[in-house]
């Protein structure tokens, strides 16, 4: 059955899509609004501003990869083409692996489709602690509703796959809260391949929703261009300078792209957005750029189940638990949300991090393997002030993220919760993803062993798929890079619309938070820059 690729027909009908790898001479492009990045923030901004009649230019560092190339449903191809640093991005010390998207559509092209509203307690915390205005629960509700309708978000109506069913069963047995995850899909085939690019265009990523609509409204998309710097005089931005990348997606070809724009929107996501502002020497008198970068540190627990799990098939995330998320309010000991990841062979090898006969056994057991993960909610107390983005000599981003005792305490409690839930769900044996852990065959044995695990970088295997902060919003210029509406505090026509504006982590998978906040802030901006 042929799936309509969208882009082939669109380009044939006149969409302006340019691959910078094909440029052989310098280019000068002009626009009303230049948007850097085509992920959750850039995609929403492009749709709203192009519908308003503005001349919009979208710039993307990654390539344009569409459903035709996703139909191999292949893990290696996806990591190579759709993820930052071929899915090998990590914190500067290598201790925390970072999964972040890098193609047209950004992380929305490869995320697992979980679509949560920003928790009300997170919004209240931003208002009371970070001088954020206009984004309370009631302010945001219509924007969440608008995005949910736009992108087909609804609680998953089918049965959870066996991997997610383990989490629900464990929670039910223990009397813990759990809930069905809303997903941004239309006509989902329940294949399980969200992370490799949806092969049937069911996931309502920016790639298949807002960006095609923006292109239909006359926007221009240039992909495989790396924005080197914003060109500004300390008061306003007049445009930007970028480098075309070759067909390998990484090597600059030497062709320069210059953009002149009345307004510039930065939407490269946390890590890349602050790095661009740092490279551009944007005014930063309080040295806020790159600070307070949050990642929802993730630790995992692996269980061997008696039943067939096939943790690679079916909607990857459909059940979550907030049992341990808000127990002590927003600012008590670290809270965490429990979910499961899909386990394909490559990502599984990375999570097992074993070798020899042990790795052979673990890989062979994959069809019966359940993995559980905890998203640790960082950034709500002084003992969790996040990481810092800086730039390497060549201008590329570097993220330093130090684990604190406060965060490690959350890691240990999360290991305990996950093992308890897995045993309650019937696990034969459970192993925390930690170098010093072995398989435990009962909850009491696991509880005792986990209590003694040394919690140190590299011994505890840590991951993140949620990058947030680094260009925090705050109406207090001493505490934020942009104000609550995403306007830069010092450059009058520069705006940041992406997850880097979050003053803390979200406490849930962040895509809907980025979509809704961007829609609200772009809509506030629109009347000021049109007409």
């Amino acid at each position, binding site marked *: *059955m042929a799936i309509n690729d969208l882009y082939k027909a669109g380009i044939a009908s006149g969409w302006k899509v340019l691959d910078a790898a094909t440029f052989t001479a310098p280019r000068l492009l002009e626009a009303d609004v230049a948007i850097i990045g085509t992920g959750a923030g850039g995609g929403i901004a492009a749709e709203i501003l192009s519908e308003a009649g503005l001349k919009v230019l979208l710039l993307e560092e990654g390539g344009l990869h569409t459903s035709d190339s996703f*139909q*191999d*449903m*292949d*893990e*290696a191809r996806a*990591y*190579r083409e759709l993820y930052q*640093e*071929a*899915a*090998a*991005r*990590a914190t*500067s*010390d*290598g*201790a925390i*692996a970072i999964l972040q998207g890098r193609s047209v559509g950004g992380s929305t092209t490869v995320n697992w489709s979980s679509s949560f509203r920003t928790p009300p307690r997170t919004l209240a915390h931003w208002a009371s602690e970070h001088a954020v205005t206009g984004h309370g629960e009631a302010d945001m509700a219509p924007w969440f509703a608008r995005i949910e309708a736009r992108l087909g978000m609804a609680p998953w109506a089918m049965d959870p796959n066996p991997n997610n069913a383990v989490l629900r069963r464990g929670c039910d047995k223990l009397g813990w809260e759990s809930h069905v995850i809303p997903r941004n899909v239309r006509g989902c*085939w329940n*294949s*399980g*391949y969200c992370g490799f690019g949806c*092969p*049937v265009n069911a996931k309502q990523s920016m790639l298949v929703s807002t960006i095609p609509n923006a292109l239909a409204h006359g926007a221009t998309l240039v992909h495989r261009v790396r924005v080197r710097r914003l060109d500004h005089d300390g008061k306003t931005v007049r445009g930007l300078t970028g480098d075309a990348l070759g067909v390998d997606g*990484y090597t600059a070809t030497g062709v320069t792209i210059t953009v002149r724009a009345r307004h510039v929107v930065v939407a490269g996501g946390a890590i890349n957005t602050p790095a661009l502002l740092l490279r551009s020497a944007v005014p930063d008198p309080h040295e806020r750029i790159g600070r307070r970068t949050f990642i929802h540190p993730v630790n995992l627990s692996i269980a061997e189940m008696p039943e067939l799990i096939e943790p*690679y*098939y079916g909607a990857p995330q459909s059940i979550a638990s907030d049992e341990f998320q808000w127990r002590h309010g927003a600012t008590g000991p670290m809270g965490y949300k429990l979910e499961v990841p899909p386990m*394909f*062979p*490559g*990502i*599984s*090898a*990375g999570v097992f*991090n*074993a*070798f*020899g*006969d042990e*790795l*052979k056994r673990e*890989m*062979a*057991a*994959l*069809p019966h393997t359940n993995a559980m993960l905890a998203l640790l909610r960082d950034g709500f107390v002084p003992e969790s002030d996040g990481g810092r983005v800086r730039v*390497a*000599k*060549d201008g*590329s*981003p*570097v993220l*330093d993220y130090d684990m604190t005792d406060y965060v490690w305490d959350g890691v240990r409690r999360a290991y305990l919760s996950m093992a308890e839930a897995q045993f309650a769900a019937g696990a034969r044996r459970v192993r925390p993803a930690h*170098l010093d852990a072995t398989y435990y065959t009962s909850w009491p044995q696991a509880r005792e062993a986990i209590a003694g695990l040394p919690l*140190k*970088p*590299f*011994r505890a295997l840590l991951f993140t798929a949620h990058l947030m902060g680094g260009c925090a919003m705050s109406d207090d210029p001493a505490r934020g890079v942009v104000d609550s509406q995403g306007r830069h505090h010092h450059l009058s026509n520069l705006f940041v619309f992406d997850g880097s504006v979050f003053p803390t982590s979200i406490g849930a998978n962040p895509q809907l938070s980025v979509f809704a906040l961007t829609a609200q802030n772009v809509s506030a901006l629109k009347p000021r820059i049109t007409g």
Partner: protein
Amino acid sequence: MPIPEPRAAVDPSRRHFLKIGAGFSAAIACTALFPALTGCTPADAPPQPGMAFLRPADVRMFRALLPAIAVDLAGLDAAAREARLAAALKNIDGTIAAMDQNGRTELRKLLDLLDSTPLRWAVAGVRTPWDQATPDQVRAFLARWRGSRFATLNAGGVVLVKLASVAYFVLPGTWAASGYPGPNPAVYRALHS
């Protein structure tokens, strides 16, 4: 053969360095730890033909690492084994080449350290050249680094295992070993019919 802890263990000033050292520092490879020793490859040595990042010495090291990590390689006939090694090496190379400057620089230091005979012996406990090292010797090295109380060595042991094992198990030829039947059959059939 009992291998002593790396020599850094006895020197308090080095301990401090290793504690604060992020990843694999240049110091461990070429300067502070063994200032009298040379052997670090020149920074401009070219990659092996067909590779974007890996140099011939790195390829030798990963060729020793892969069969130690993925033991089912031993059960293949020579041609199949060679094809799979080549495909995994290509994946490792592509992954490192795609890393930003920080990651590439740290990996380069680690690989140069492991290429230098005196450093490999002193820090990794592997006396033989990589192309003569047995899987058991390689596994002993990995276990020692991962069991060390030095985060820098833990980092090396974790990163090498991750690079090699992920590059190997994404290969379709290995799916039987992980019980993965391949792309969701009903969906794949419908898309490709």
